């Protein structure tokens, strides 16, 4: 099986040595359950944002609106059921991280009766990495909670 290129399309290529943000989280739920929360509009908005528009096919649109009106936008690049979701990412109106300017890769690995979620966010300008890391460290636990059958509540935003 040939491995697909790391960055198949979309964001600018900042080179392999560009720093990336990586966050991992173990979830007590099977990969198929986690995958469902990454590929459905209503389910996505349960853990991140106030609403989401998810067209989970390669080239399909990704839009997620935060409670304060901020809009994250990108396109799906790669989907491997229960295993991997890749989409481009950026913020509407953002001077340094515009829509589609960076890429988010989420890998789901089965471990025992749970899943290890590994999220890598590539292509962000170095000055924008820390704040996005803060964001993903806020959201992966919310994804874990909902996947485990809990209720993360209304998204209050990180912090």
């Amino acid at each position: 099986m040939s491995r697909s290129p790391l960055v198949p399309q979309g964001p600018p290529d900042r080179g392999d040595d560009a720093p990336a943000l990586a966050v991992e989280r173990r979830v007590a739920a099977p990969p198929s359950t986690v995958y469902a929360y990454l590929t459905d509009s209503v389910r996505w908005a349960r853990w991140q944002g106030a609403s989401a528009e998810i067209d989970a096919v390669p080239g399909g649109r990704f839009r997620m609106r935060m409670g304060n009106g901020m809009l994250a936008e990108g396109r799906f690049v790669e989907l491997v059921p229960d295993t991997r979701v890749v989409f481009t990412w950026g913020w509407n109106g953002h001077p340094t991280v515009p829509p589609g300017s960076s890429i988010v890769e989420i890998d789901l690995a089965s471990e025992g009766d749970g899943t290890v979620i590994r999220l890598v966010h590539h292509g962000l300008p170095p000055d924008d990495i820390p704040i996005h890391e803060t964001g993903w460290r806020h959201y992966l636990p919310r994804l874990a909670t909902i996947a485990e059958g809990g209720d993360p509540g209304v998204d209050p935003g990180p912090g």
Partner: protein
Amino acid sequence: MDALQVVTEPHRREILRAVWDRELSAGDIAARFPVTFGAVSQHLAVLRTAGFVTVRRDGTRRFYRADRERLGPLAQALEAMWRATLDELAAAVEAESDRR
């Protein structure tokens, strides 16, 4: 975006105030504001682009501080505004305690 547009946005003013006389990490700033990381990220990028905050880079960490010199006359305007707000608050508290 002109300088005035940069500082008239309330969240950006609050970020400037928070880093007025000390530096804070990006994470600290995110934790202090009840807005999403997208908004904090955008506001910081606007402030950086305008040169109104300086960024100290320490490995992967980023520490922000207001650049008052770069803000020029806007720095005094902001300080006057914050002082006025404090004075109003103090006056209101005084009036409230007089009433009791």
